[in-house]
């Protein structure tokens, strides 16, 4: 690892003996020296020095919030480093915008796709580098060029299709084509697998290797250990903005990687002991349909049940009806058909408030938008919904602040909410602690039925571990739990049964210990239609 900063200020090629030598061997193509990035409240990168060799696949591993995207955005000219140097092909460079980075041969596929959904594949690929005469775009030529590169790299996609009609896997392919269209020699992929099914990941890795063989140098960002092992030759590990390790993959084990990433030993698996035999179900959904305005179904005759002490996982690619399902259960969307029953009582005609009173708790997927009132204090967020009930309100309708504070303080301890005080705003908390506020509110009600929508989205390993253990605790206490998650890992870690949702239908039910993520992935993309596979076996 490079000490910061042993080199004299870099002033051109002749002063740099070591670097030149390295160049003659033809290897390093990109290097960062002691890159530091200070955001207003966060030191996102702290003296990071990495080196990318020509034609290699390099991984950068780190938890959520470790600073990976920040570092890549600096390389790509989107952010400017607070201090530090970037050296490209032996020359110090400083990008003032992505335009410079693109000119220098960098391409980046961002964590959140940079595609304009209402435009076509061709328009997106050529955007900013349009073939044109006098400002008028030559669409004919553009389409031909797009077809040519997609042929060259084996990345097939319909050039006239609108982005909004493409699957996530194909959208990512467009992103890669976008970089290649600009002749990227260095391709940065920021968490490219986060949104993909196992099949799509495999396909992506095939593409990445093919690109490498054509001479493209690749940096792939991830927080998944398996992927690092599977795809790359070398790895750097980031932790809280600092470089915490590096090495050749062949010299490292998964456990070592996990340790460097988190800074301590991690339990890679939660203990999933059930509590014996299955009880009779308490929560039922039957024949539930929600139609879009146009008429096609967002949810199509969904049927499921959940027993006390059971976790049922809903697996699926984003946008296949998951959010409609939770909205329907909570009464946030009008249902067109079907019934929802809890403890034998029909609840689909009740208001959201009444459903909660029947014993439903809900953890929404967007904690900042739907889970919290960010501007309000932690204590107010913890009692919201019960703010008009005893003991939080006195007889004359006056709010009992003392009681609220006492209660919130107790829960803050119970749920390990790290905050200087319960009277600070929810906005000031980290993502993990915000989620704990929601858990405190929802779990403390002792619900009969618990609906969790992506309960650990975007959190770091520590917070994920904690939240998973609390969920298992609720299960042990006998809550019936429905878990919606886009992370297959999470589905497998927690659920007893897995239901796969595809285009608004539950296309498959599987026992967790009798299936694989590969099989689930297949159903998630509609690979197999309902019932066409022999059960379990």
């Amino acid at each position, binding site marked *: 690892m490079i000490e910061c900063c042993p080199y004299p200020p870099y002033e051109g090629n002749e002063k740099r003996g070591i670097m030149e030598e390295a160049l003659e061997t033809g290897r390093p193509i990109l290097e960062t020296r002691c890159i530091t990035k200070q955001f*207003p409240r966060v030191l996102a990168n702290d003296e990071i020095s990495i080196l990318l060799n020509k034609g290699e696949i390099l991984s950068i591993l780190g938890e959520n919030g470790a600073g990976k995207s920040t570092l890549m955005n600096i390389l790509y000219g989107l952010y400017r480093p607070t201090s530090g140097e970037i050296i490209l092909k032996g020359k110090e460079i400083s990008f003032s915008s*992505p335009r410079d980075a693109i000119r220098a041969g960098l391409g980046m596929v961002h964590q959140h796709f940079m595609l304009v959904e*209402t435009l076509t594949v061709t328009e997106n690929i050529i955007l900013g580098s349009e073939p044109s005469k006098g400002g008028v775009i030559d669409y004919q030529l553009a389409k031909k060029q797009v077809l040519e590169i997609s042929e060259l790299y084996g990345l097939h996609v319909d050039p006239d299709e609108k982005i909004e009609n493409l699957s996530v896997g194909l959208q990512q392919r467009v992103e890669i084509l976008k970089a290649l269209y600009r002749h990227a020699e260095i391709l940065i992929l920021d968490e490219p697998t986060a949104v993909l099914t196992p099949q799509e990941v495999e396909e992506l890795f095939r593409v990445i290797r093919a690109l490498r063989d054509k001479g493209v140098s690749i940096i792939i960002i991830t927080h998944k250990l398996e992927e690092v092992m599977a795809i790359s030759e070398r790895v750097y590990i980031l932790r809280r903005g600092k470089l915490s390790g590096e090495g050749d993959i062949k010299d490292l084990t998964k456990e070592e990687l996990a340790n460097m990433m988190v800074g301590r030993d991690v339990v890679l698996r939660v203990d999933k002991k059930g509590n014996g035999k299955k009880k009779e179900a308490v929560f039922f959904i039957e024949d539930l349909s929600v139609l879009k305005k146009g008429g096609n179904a967002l949810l199509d005759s969904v049927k499921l049940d959940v027993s006390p002490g059971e976790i049922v996982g809903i697996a699926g690619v984003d946008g296949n009806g998951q959010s409609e399902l939770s909205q329907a259960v909570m009464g946030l969307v009008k249902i067109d058909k079907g019934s929802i029953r809890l403890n034998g009582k029909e609840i689909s005609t009740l208001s959201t408030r009444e459903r909660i009173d029947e014993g439903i708790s809900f953890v929404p997927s967007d904690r900042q938008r739907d889970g919290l009132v960010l501007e309000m204090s932690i204590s107010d967020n913890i009692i919201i919904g019960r703010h008009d009930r005893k003991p939080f309100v006195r007889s004359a309708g006056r709010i009992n602040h003392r009681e609220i504070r006492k209660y919130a303080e107790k829960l803050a301890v119970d749920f390990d909410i790290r905050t200087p005080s319960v009277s600070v705003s929810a906005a000031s908390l980290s993502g993990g602690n915000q989620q704990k506020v929601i858990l405190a509110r929802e779990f403390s009600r002792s619900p009969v039925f618990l609906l969790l929508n992506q309960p650990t989205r975007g959190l770091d390993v520590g917070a994920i571990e904690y939240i998973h253990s609390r969920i298992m605790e609720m299960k042990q206490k006998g809550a019936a739990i429905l878990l919606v998650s886009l992370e297959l890992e999470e589905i497998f870690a927690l659920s007893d049964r897995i239901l796969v949702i595809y285009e608004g239908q539950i296309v498959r039910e599987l026992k967790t210990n009798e299936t694989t993520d590969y099989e689930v992935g297949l159903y998630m993309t509609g690979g197999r239609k309902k019932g066409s596979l022999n059960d379990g076996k």
Partner: protein
Amino acid sequence: MSFLMFLNTDLLVATVRLSTPITLAALGATVCERAGVVNIAMEGIMIIGAFFAAVTAFYTGNPWLGLASGVLAGGIYSLIHAAAAISLHLDHVVSGAVLNILAFGITRYLMVLFFGHPGTSDAIPSFLGDYQFAVPLLSKIPVLGPVFFNQTPIIYISFILVIFLAWFLKHTRTGLHIRAAGEHPLALETIGVSVYKIKYLAVFISGLASGLAGAYLSIENNVSFTEGMTNGKGFIALAAMISGGWSAAGSFLSALFFGFADALQIRFQVFRIFHVPEELFIIFPYAATIIAVAGFVRRSRPPKADGVDFIIEKENE
């Protein structure tokens, strides 16, 4: 007196004339909002354009210079909106509202400064209405000929602009960048195109168009400037753009509809065919606006990042 006697060629000619300022302002707003900047300042920009067109035409005696000056004044005035909404990250609606109020203050002040009194300016020596001309052949088409091809200069310019802007947005690099900026600005920035520049350009274009609309009011449809002569047309243009689905052609058609409502209203007043207070007729175009917006808006979709502030790196302070 038959109701049908209203539906003659004159009514349609009046429709086009009354819709022209709405069309122009709505076209500009379309470009602006497609780039992601909400613009409700057309009313104010228009009045500024109208004033400078009239003043220039008055002092130079040349209405063409008036036209140029009105357009330019609109463009420059709109840059205040650009600076506020894009560079200073002010809420677009707030900035637009300020621009509207400010414009009426400015024009009143300048009226007194240039003409010595508020209200209406002195008449300009020569106005663009004098330059009416019939396009050979086309003006001979029954009904449509006289309606569309025997008009005055800015009306022709507005027709050309409808076609040009529809083509421009679809087929030019800048047009593509404008569309991308309104849908997903970061996608544009990360591909090396400056979103700020594109947004500034789009706001400026909308200013030019609204300025032209103003010039139409004061030196083509009229021979003088009158305070408040825009009379809500900038807001009706906003409605036309929305019910026209944020497209050039749609804006034009909606503007024609509003122009038609206005023309009809005037007829009703003049002929007094129904015996009701005339105030009820006057509200007719505005009521039509409300109905059209309520009816169409739900079906048309604004650009996804319309009115959303764009900051790459939130790190200043």
